[in-house]
């Protein structure tokens, strides 16, 4: 199969897993906060492990380009947060809040998936197994992200099926940017270390500015640290075995 199709396939698969996040609400269940906290901790660990893989792959191809790309990724995520006014947005707040809050969360999710798409595209350019691995890691992260979004949207009267649809739609930028990033690094291989660095910086900044601080509020720091480390350990182990 053409590699671009593989990128399309796995990026779409990763985007579509957001549907699973709506699962609990289809059965009319309410999620306990601590479970979302642990899901976020798992996502943090996987993304930190993925960032480690991106960094190792990047540094094998160029030092300064990776570092500059990483700074760009960090600045990009930090800037989109402050520019969209979602810097201190509390995604734990499932009830209350204004109507605009639901849309803000939707906006945050689509901004996130843009940098996640770059990660998939850049990883796919390194090697196909690494790219598929990255897509799967981000797919796992998309589930709790969608769960939080669906909890907020259904709390505001949106039907469960529509909420699930919006959660997937928020990930469209992921598919788009995965293909664009892949096409660019294929056409100009010199940009690959930049893309790897960018994706790495963006993932770490996402984890540090959102996933971790939120999970600490939902559960004790010791259990969050343990869950994060187990997820990170598994990801790093799988990467080293595959390499």
């Amino acid at each position: 199969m053409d590699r671009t199709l593989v990128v399309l396939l796995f990026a779409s698969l990763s985007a579509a897993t957001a549907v699973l996040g709506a699962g609990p609400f289809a059965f009319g269940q309410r999620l306990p906060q601590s479970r979302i906290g642990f899901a976020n901790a798992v996502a943090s660990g996987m993304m930190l492990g993925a960032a480690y893989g991106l960094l190792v792959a990047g540094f094998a191809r160029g030092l300064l380009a990776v570092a500059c790309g990483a700074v760009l990724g960090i600045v990009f995520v930090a800037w989109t947060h402050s520019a969209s006014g979602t810097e201190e947005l509390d995604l734990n707040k499932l009830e209350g809040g204004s109507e605009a809050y639901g849309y803000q969360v939707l906006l945050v999710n689509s901004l996130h998936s843009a940098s996640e798409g770059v990660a998939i595209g850049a990883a796919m350019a390194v090697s196909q197994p690494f790219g598929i691995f990255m897509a799967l890691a981000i797919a796992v992260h998309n589930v709790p992200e969608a769960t939080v979004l669906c909890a907020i949207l259904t709390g505001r009267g949106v039907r469960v099926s529509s909420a699930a649809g919006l959660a997937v739609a928020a990930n469209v930028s992921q598919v788009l940017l995965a293909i664009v990033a892949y096409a660019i690094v294929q056409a100009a291989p010199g940009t690959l270390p930049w893309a790897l660095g960018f994706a790495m910086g963006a993932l770490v900044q996402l984890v540090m500015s959102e996933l971790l601080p939120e999970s600490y509020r939902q559960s004790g720091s010791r259990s969050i640290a343990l869950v994060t480390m187990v997820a990170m350990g598994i990801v790093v182990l799988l990467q080293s075995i595959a390499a």
Partner: protein
Amino acid sequence: MSAVVTVFVYGLVTAVATGLGALPFALIRTISPRAVALANAVAGGLMLGASFGIVAEGTGYGAWQTLAGGLLGVVFILVTQQRLGDPNVAIAGAATADGRRMALIVIVMTVHSFAEGVAVGVAFGGGPTLALAITVAIAVHNVPEGLAISAVLRPRGMTVLACAAWSIFSSLPQPVMAVPAFLFVETFRSALPYGLGFAAGAMVFMVLEELLPEAYDRASRARVAVVVSLTLVGMMLFQRVL
């Protein structure tokens, strides 16, 4: 023999860095929580970056062994915490410090240093570059630790010099533990990935369990995140450039 001396000296450098934490108290009575938070964020980023470097080194020798070592590192920190109670409690209660609290924070921080000493020693098994990187990370991490100790001791009327001395004392296990850890991985080369994993596991756990939650409590999470991410990248670059 000279290698052992080098390891000891590197361990001593990280210990002396703890004393730097007492310096701000020469000028001011108290320190703003935000400054402590950002110092923690810098230390967190450096330690995560150092751990990434250690893991990259360790998985080169064996991925499973590194992971097993990491598990040991986490268990070690958990067990010592269980024995001594939560150091965060002692730091938070700085204002109501009494003799017992003063003793407690020094003891907790001292035991805390054992794993860091092992990290310095094991890193030497992975080569001088890795050793230098880990030493810098731990030395910087020690500064806010010295700050925390001094914040408890200084309001009780201790001199700045005494604060610095107790801070350095709390890190003395670092040179002491670094040497046997280094000799161990030198003698049993097959133990190296376990040792590297131990160091990385212990450091990442400390970052996730203590440094980051404390930092988020006292400063805006956007600022903490940028500081952690940038220092992580800087640390990785530093390790590669050397």
